[in-house]
């Protein structure tokens, strides 16, 4: 049923008539607030199952798997309780899910054998009846409990054969009472006796007290075939459904699913559930559990992945469209050996990074899985954003995280450009404290060292400053484009009263200047404006003067 606008609704179970679940495919179920608890809690159970000991064999492994199944069901029930005050339509869906899961647990996970099987089915029906219809519960509980004592001992002290014999004996006794006419005076008692003997007609007479065909089934089995074997269930189930529905109504999706379970057609159960239920949660988790029970042969789908993986991938993909549930999805992809990695790579790039903290979480996930390309890509995105917002320190921080030398160079150039334009450094707290990260890129190293030069000059440590300045050029730490600036920075040092640059150093500076000017083509020299030419002239003059002074100084006897 589609409402205009595309959202769809689900009709609830009608009580007390036979369960009818109309479910319609709803694209983004997961956005229902109250299901978040289901997703979160089941995620924990899922992870626990994947990590659980495979070495445990036989009974202990089975017990472990049954416990996992019970844990899943208790989460479903907890959600049902939470939703109880809210929309009843969701309670019905959960109720149906729990019903199906419970049956699968009995038949597949626990694989209850003849004897305990009926007990489990009794509990199963009772549990669900309590949810649906109190009246029926009263009827069932009004049966004389002593008659069932035999069954309560099942599995404890008696073997199946012993139990069958006792039951046979009791059954014959009942039959005798009926034939003797012991209850002839009371039609109600007679009716009960017939029911106890498993008389189908007698049971069907009370049809209005039974909500569903599977209640009928279990009731029948209780009184006629309590030691039913698992493989015999299908026959009784089919006939029960036929008898109960009696051609009046056709089976609903839920009926089909349960029938498939009674027929032990696991793949059919999963297929029908996928169609009937509107989200992947149920089939994904159930199939995974059944797979751990080693019950599913590899059922190859056309693209080669097995069913378990296919369903988990679908479920997890759905989670990624949610702003915070995507984190659960990551763990599911991790446990899909064939395509999980690829899916994760595709999905993780699409997570909106609205805060730095979120970006950090995504990065951590990528780093833990050696997804280097994604790490670089995300860091670059964040760094670019920071750069555009003029947060140079943040941009650098992202470059360091990605070890992105190219971006570090970009940021350094930005700083240097700012310096040239404004004549002073911005963000000194950053440049002065680069530490080892300075080595990430040559340009960054230059930036740090250049700032250090300014600091030394400010502290009047001129000879150290001079040495550093020269080194920046001779060691080629400074980019060529910056040499003119550096030489210009040398001017005040050259014109100090005291001689700072040694002769050797002066020669070096001259050589740098000549390298710089020689490198220019004639055309460039022609285009150089007067300022540029004058600068070069001034430098040449200053260098010559310094050379003169220093030769004299160095030539003079020491100490005089």
């Amino acid at each position: 049923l589609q409402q205009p606008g595309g959202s769809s609704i689900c009709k609830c179970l009608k009580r007390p008539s036979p369960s009818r679940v109309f479910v319609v495919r709803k694209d983004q179920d997961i956005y229902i607030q109250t299901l978040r608890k289901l997703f979160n809690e089941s995620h924990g159970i899922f992870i626990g199952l994947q990590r659980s000991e495979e070495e445990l064999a036989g009974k202990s492994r089975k017990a472990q798997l049954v416990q996992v199944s019970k844990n899943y069901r208790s989460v479903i029930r907890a959600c049902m309780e939470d939703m109880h005050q809210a929309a009843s339509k969701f309670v019905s869906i959960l109720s149906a899910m729990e019903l199906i899961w419970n049956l699968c647990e009995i038949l597949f996970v626990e694989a209850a054998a003849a004897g305990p099987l009926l007990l489990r089915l009794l509990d199963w029906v009772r549990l669900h009846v309590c949810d649906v219809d109190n009246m029926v519960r009263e009827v069932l509980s009004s049966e004389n409990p002593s008659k069932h004592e035999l069954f309560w001992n099942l599995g404890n002290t008696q073997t199946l054969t012993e139990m069958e014999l006792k039951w046979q004996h009791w059954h014959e006794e009942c039959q005798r009472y009926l034939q003797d006419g012991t209850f002839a005076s009371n039609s109600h008692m007679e009716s009960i006796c017939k029911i106890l003997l498993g008389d189908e007609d007698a049971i069907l007479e009370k049809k209005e007290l039974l909500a569903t065909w599977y209640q009928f089934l279990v009731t029948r089995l209780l009184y006629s075939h309590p030691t039913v074997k698992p493989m015999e269930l299908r026959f009784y189930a089919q006939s029960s459904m036929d008898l109960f529905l009696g051609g009046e109504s056709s089976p609903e999706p839920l009926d089909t699913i349960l029938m498939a379970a009674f027929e032990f057609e696991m793949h059919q159960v999963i297929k029908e559930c996928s169609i009937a239920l509107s989200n992947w949660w149920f089939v994904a988790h159930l199939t995974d559990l059944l797979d751990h029970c080693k019950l599913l042969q590899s059922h190859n789908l056309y693209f080669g992945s097995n069913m378990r993986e296919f369903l988990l991938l679908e479920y997890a993909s759905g989670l990624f469209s949610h702003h915070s549930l995507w984190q659960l999805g990551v763990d599911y992809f991790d446990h899909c050996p064939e395509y999980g990695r690829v899916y994760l790579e595709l999905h993780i790039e699409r997570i909106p990074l609205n805060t730095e903290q979120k970006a950090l979480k995504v990065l951590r996930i990528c780093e833990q899985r050696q997804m280097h390309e994604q790490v670089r890509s995300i860091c670059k995105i964040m760094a670019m954003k920071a750069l555009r917002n003029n947060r140079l320190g943040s941009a650098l921080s992202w470059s360091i995280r990605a070890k992105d030398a190219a971006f570090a160079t970009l940021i350094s150039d930005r700083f240097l450009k700012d310096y040239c334009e404004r004549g002073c450094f911005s963000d000194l707290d950053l440049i002065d404290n680069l530490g080892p990260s300075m080595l990430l890129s040559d340009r960054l190293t230059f930036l740090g060292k250049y700032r250090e030069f300014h600091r030394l000059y400010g502290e009047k440590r001129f000879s150290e400053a001079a040495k550093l300045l020269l080194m920046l050029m001779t060691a080629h730490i400074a980019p060529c484009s910056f040499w003119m600036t550096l030489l210009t920075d040398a001017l005040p040092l050259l014109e100090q009263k005291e001689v700072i640059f040694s002769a050797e150093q002066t020669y070096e500076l001259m050589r740098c200047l000549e390298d710089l000017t020689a490198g220019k083509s004639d055309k460039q020299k022609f285009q150089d404006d007067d300022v540029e030419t004058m600068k070069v002239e001034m430098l040449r003059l200053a260098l010559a003067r310094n050379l003169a002074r220093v030769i004299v100084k160095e030539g003079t006897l020491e100490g005089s």
Partner: protein
Amino acid sequence: PRPDPTLHTTKTGGVIFVQDNRISIWSVGDLGNVGLNGEYQGEPQLLCDIRHNGDVMDMQFLDQERIVVASSTGTVTVFHHHQNNQTLSANQRWEKAHSHVDQDTSCGGAACTGVICNNPEIVTVGEDGRINLFRADQKDAVRTIDNADSSTLHAVTFLRTTEILTVNSIGQLKIWDLRQQRNEPSQIFSLTGDRVPLHCVDRHPNQQHVVATGGQDGMLSVWDIRQGTMPVSLLNAHEAEMWEVHFHPSNPDHLFTCSEDGSLWHWDTSTDVAEKPSFLHQGGRSTTYFSHNTINQSVVSAWLSNDPTKDRMEITNLIPNQTLSVNSLDILGPCLVYGTDAEAIYVNRQLFA
């Protein structure tokens, strides 16, 4: 009754989910009323909640009734908890307390990453590198330091009533003197080695010179801010970002840290096991806490010593089956509370049992 889930239908027929972030107040029972075994029976009860725009990045109680919340949208809101009828209302709001300066070129908003209160003062920091000083009853900010930091400020705490500590994403710890008018920190401390971003900071309740910070690499650093510019001890802790660090407010030889790696660690430097203070009479106005002078002495040396093993520091992971990140924690008396990315809140009421 719960409100219906928030769904919107777009014109094209898709269903989009409206972010349903909420501020909630829960009751975990009366701290003074525990049973014979100290066990509290029953689950935390939701008292009231209110919608919040954007992710909640940080929050703190301003006083008994007011809570200051930092949002990913850059807004700072003061909520009022009305205890008489158990409701929450938004009392005051500073929109765009944090934002990127040039709105024309601005690329996305700037989250407010940290808030700290000292009634009536509120200090906030954010991704824009800005520091704001608000007063609860004043509409405009008392003081704003734009571009206080060229990188993201991740957390802030009070050092003294007029001084704050901030940590940033290039591994620096800075002290700011709010009395001074200049927009420069009074002191800068840096990590040795790589400038790993720092995410959280806390100051020792009694020893004001002892500061703990947590980094992106999960490392716990302890600083003595009286001396030097580098941490005194570096303790390898978590395997991923350390989101929060807290000294126990009344028993500070215990420290707690939580991380993206899903663990929550209890660091215990109390040297004499037998002398653990009793917390059975926690809470209430007239309670006197144990003050072990001897323990305080060893506390100082323990936190500032370079060799934690020498002073028998016990470190315990309080989470048995860790899966998703533990984003936040708080402690009071014997009670520890923490929240995870699995949308669960855990309350441990017998921390020292």
